[in-house]
């Protein structure tokens, strides 16, 4: 298989449940595979680590040469004040697609309201809420013989918590849930994107992004008038050492933190249950020894990375890596999900192994863009799994593999149906 073919197969929706054989095909051409469109796809663990620490590689798409300028975000007529508002708010990308020093400034500013040293209590203070939410869901499932781990269990926890932290009204959940689902489905890289269906998904996604942006602008402007204790409001009123973020930076970063703050957590909880049930004995082992849950989470994230790859990188100079020179200007994709199964780094890489010595995966990313919300995600997933393991009796997978969502980057199951004997108190 050529790198082009292998990459296309890995991107195909039909292969979403298991793209890994195609990642292995890519690996056959070396840790850094060049595709005929000039994209360099990095599948080697060490190579991803080295390149994510290389200050000659940019995360900022605006620095990629010959990139078609994205059309300005349209809300309607050019003279429409709403269109102007969107254009104004849409100009600064979020920190995940920016480089230092702006990336660092935004991350520092956002972290002031999220973690230590300025807000050390925020995440720990969420534990009781996490426990309450997951227990409520299992109470509701009492009497049922079949539940969907995604909708009935994995989704409500992170979404409730991130709404609380950011000050997004939970009552708007049906609305933003639909927008996010459309936006995700519309962002495709593989051959599916070129189909008629794919084009429609893309259009629908773009419209949803516009709607969602308007929504966030509304929250930002409302917080400006009526301060709350949510993170959006804190960013709007921040007077920290780096100054306030610009309004468009606040909007783009709040969306980033909001989406990344629950969507990838849902995938990790769902993938965890899926993985435990696929590996006979591990569910019982973890129920007997809940102290192994943190290890299990890291191991699931290695095998089923919530961000399976990231495509916005660009070489700003000729970069030599493992005998290959990536020419200046080349797009680079870091394939975290492939690197996490690199046999040079992880023995028997496809095995779910709680005793594994090499624990440091790229599931949280690597370098300065490493997961902003890792501590919160670990708390949420740990709480969810601990309660699930203790209370759910004899869970069995109904369909394996389960249906997956369309997005290849934020890869996760759409539903994970399980049959159960009951819910313990």
């Amino acid at each position, binding site marked *: 298989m050529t790198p082009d073919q292998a990459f296309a197969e890995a991107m195909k929706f039909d292969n979403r449940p298991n793209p890994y054989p195609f990642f292995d095909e890519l690996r056959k051409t070396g840790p850094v595979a060049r595709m005929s469109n000039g994209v360099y796809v990095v599948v080697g663990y060490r190579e991803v680590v080295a390149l994510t*620490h290389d*200050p*000659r590689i*940019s995360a*900022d798409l605006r620095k990629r040469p010959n990139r078609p300028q994205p059309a300005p975000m349209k809300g309607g007529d050019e003279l429409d004040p709403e269109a102007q508002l969107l254009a104004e708010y849409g100009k600064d990308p979020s920190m995940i697609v920016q*480089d*230092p*020093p702006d990336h660092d400034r935004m991350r520092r500013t956002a972290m002031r309201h999220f973690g230590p040293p300025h807000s050390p209590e925020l995440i720990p203070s969420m534990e009781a809420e996490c426990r309450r939410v997951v227990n409520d869901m299992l109470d509701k499932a009492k009497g049922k013989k079949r539940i969907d781990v995604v909708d009935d269990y994995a989704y409500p926890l992170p979404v409730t918590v991130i709404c609380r932290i950011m000050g997004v009204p939970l009552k708007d959940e049906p609305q933003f849930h639909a927008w996010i689902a459309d936006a995700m489905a519309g962002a495709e890289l593989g051959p599916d994107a070129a189909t008629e269906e794919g084009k429609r998904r893309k259009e629908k996604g773009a419209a949803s992004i516009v709607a969602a942006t308007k929504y966030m602008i509304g929250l930002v402007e409302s917080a400006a008038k009526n301060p709350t204790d949510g993170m959006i409001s804190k960013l709007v009123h921040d007077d920290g050492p780096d100054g306030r973020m610009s309004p468009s930076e606040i909007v783009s970063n709040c969306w980033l933190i909001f989406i990344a703050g629950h969507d990838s957590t849902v995938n990790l909880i769902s993938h965890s249950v899926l993985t435990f049930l696929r590996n006979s004995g591990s569910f019982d082992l973890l129920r007997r020894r809940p102290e192994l849950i943190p290890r299990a989470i890291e191991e699931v994230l290695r095998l089923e990375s919530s961000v399976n790859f990231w495509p916005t990188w660009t070489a700003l*100079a000729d970069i030599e890596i493992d005998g290959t020179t990536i020419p200046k200007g080349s797009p680079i994709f870091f394939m975290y999900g492939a690197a996490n199964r690199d046999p040079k780094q992880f023995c028997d890489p496809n095995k779910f192994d709680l005793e594994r010595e090499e624990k440091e995966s790229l599931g949280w990313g690597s370098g300065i863009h*490493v997961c902003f919300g890792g501590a919160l995600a670990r708390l949420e997933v740990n709480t969810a799994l601990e309660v699930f393991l203790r209370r759910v009796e004899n869970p069995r997978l109904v369909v394996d593999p389960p249906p997956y969502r369309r997005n290849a980057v934020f890869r996760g199951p759409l539903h994970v149906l399980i049959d159960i004997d009951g819910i313990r108190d």
Partner: protein
Amino acid sequence: MSSPTNGNAFKKNGRIVIIGASLAGLRGAEALRNEGFSGHLTIIGDEPHEPYDRPPLSKQVQKGWVKADHTKLPRMRKVDAEWRLGVAATGLDRASGVVRLANGDEVAGDALLIATGVRARPWPNPEEAKLEGVYTLRTCEDAARLQAALAARPRRVLVIGAGFIGSEVASVCRELGLEVTVAERAAAPLAGALGNVIGAIAAEMQRDAGVDLRTGVGVTKLEGDAKRHVRHARLSDGTMLDVDVVLASLGSIRNVEWLEGAGLAAGFWGVACDAGCRAFDLHGLVTNHIFVAGDVARSPHVLFEYQFLSLEQWANAVLGAEIAAHNMVCAETERRPYLPLPENWSGQFSRNIKTIGVPSFGDELVFTQGSPKERRFAAAYGRRGRIIGAVTFDYGKWLQYYGAQIERSGPFPPPAAGFDVPADARVVPAEFPARGATTAAPDVVLTGHEPNERQAEFRPRTEPRQKRAA
């Protein structure tokens, strides 16, 4: 007696003695068990405590976050050792492998791991050093005493010597709202480790935090009150300071005195060993059964022109001990070299400072990323056109980029970053202070006339010449 040359029997039934029960000693013991050594293991430590971690002693402990006796090192596995704690080793007989202890006991080993580390260099005037309120900082007792003194809200603290420890304690003093004067003989804090260019940034950090930093001065006299508590300090520029607490942070002295007469290449420089951690005897010949690890070890490093390096660094204690342990029990063909990429860190004045490589081996410097003005940056050190070290202030996530280039002997200046390039990215002299006079002379001489009769011999030890007050 099973000898290390008698592979399997030694691994099964041999006797290993580890002298030193801190980080290197503990990790060495654990590594020996991991390597399959099932014989008798003795660990000798002069401190009465189980192995504990020292980096928090100058930071979290002084802030009052962690008690001084609560930094015990986590155990990675059972070591099943005979612990001889609270009793120092006082001598070594190489021929018999017998270690003599301060209480008169003797412990024999077929192989030894020397990990006796360093101690704080005391204030050179012994009478003044005895004054109440004058401290050094190395052990957990030191840390507890200093912390109690800081918690008693002294009028002013004087820190003598602005290396990493002194600067960290000055930083804590300001966090606690205490007045603090730092007296440093060099032109800037951290100058010995990082040079004056970076030192000037550290100086600004100190002054902005409210430290009364005095550079280019020494302390000539400490004076006590009627109760023998320190109350005044005289600086070399004639200034008198009213102080209630004095921390002498003057660097370290290697714990090698117990090896006097043992015939090893041990002196103020440490215990010299090869890149496989095997000690040299006083002639510079390699020994077979005596290994060295941690702060006290000094070994040649290929990346730094094969010069012998002592690395007083946390990771060096761990990694060096692991290699030493491996080489103690493996077959000769399986020996591994210890070729670390040195790494160090410090936390002070709300900045995380990290280094990689050996900055002080360099003579040139270039700021490569970030903003020196905002004190968030990366800088690389070069020597003869190669990169040999790097430092970051709150830019630690980039450190391994420089580490990879140091390992590959990459060019200096390194390839420019693609973004976040400092306004002034010119190569400048790093401005390391001239090496001071050594504080002790190696009292070793050659004897014999014919070239093939030449022998080395240590002269009888004399008290080291009194060093001028820092």
